[in-house]
């Protein structure tokens, strides 16, 4: 048996059942009816979502800036406190020197 030839015969193309093309077009029509958004509504949805995301992004940036400002204030307070502590040590040293004379 020539299996190659037998397979070619057995696997030759077959016509689909009667009415196949009509059912394809029915499926296409059903898919068209199910399509949810027109182009304009899709564009409006994109703008709304984009606007919401953009607003959220601006809010996050503002939060970040506030955080940075607070951090800068804390650093300044540390610097001032550190300088005051330094002056206080200097004053104590001066007093103790003058008392030892």
């Amino acid at each position: 048996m020539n299996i190659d030839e037998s397979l070619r015969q057995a696997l030759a193309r077959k016509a689909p059942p009667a009415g196949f093309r009509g059912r394809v077009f029915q499926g296409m029509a059903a898919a068209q009816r199910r399509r949810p958004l027109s182009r304009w509504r899709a564009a409006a949805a994109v703008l709304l979502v984009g606007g919401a995301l953009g607003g959220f992004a601006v809010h996050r940036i503002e939060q970040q800036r506030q955080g940075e400002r607070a951090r800068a204030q804390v650093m300044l307070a540390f610097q001032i406190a550190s300088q005051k502590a330094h002056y206080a040590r200097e004053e104590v040293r001066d007093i103790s020197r003058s008392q030892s004379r």
Partner: protein
Amino acid sequence: MTASLTQAAVPERTALDRARDGDTDAFAQIVEEHEAMVFSIAYHFFGDRSMGEEIAQDVFLQLFRRLHDIESGAHLLFWLRKVATRRCIDEMRRKRPRGVSLDAAVEVGTTVPNADPLLDRQLRRLVAELPEAQRVVITLRYQEDLDPSEICDIVGMPVNTVKSHLHRGIAALRKKLGDAS
């Protein structure tokens, strides 16, 4: 001497061009031209006519949505074979196959009646029982007369893997036919 203007021949618009522009008659022409191929890939994969029709309908619906991605007639042929094959494999993995039915589907384009219709049915049943990779490769080889280098592009496997599946599939079929006789 004045140059003569020759009117360039306007190439005839193909059914694909017209279908892209929304011509449903043109799309129907495309379906008519390729329905046997697409249906047969699925029918031979599952050995079941209703599965063949279900897959083929899905493939053409997908084509209708993706017409603008198709670049040419040759690309269309490649796309249909690829999508039909991948759809069969996905469906196979998604659910248990419905079982092999020996529906007699109408042969298309044959001028010589099959010499042994019983052998044909037996071979189709045996092919539908092969592991999916061997089944796909054998269907594309013998139904579509594609060589391994063409099959590997469709199924996304290296060419040596395709050859290996082909070889093993044929060996398995020979053994089963030998066991049956």
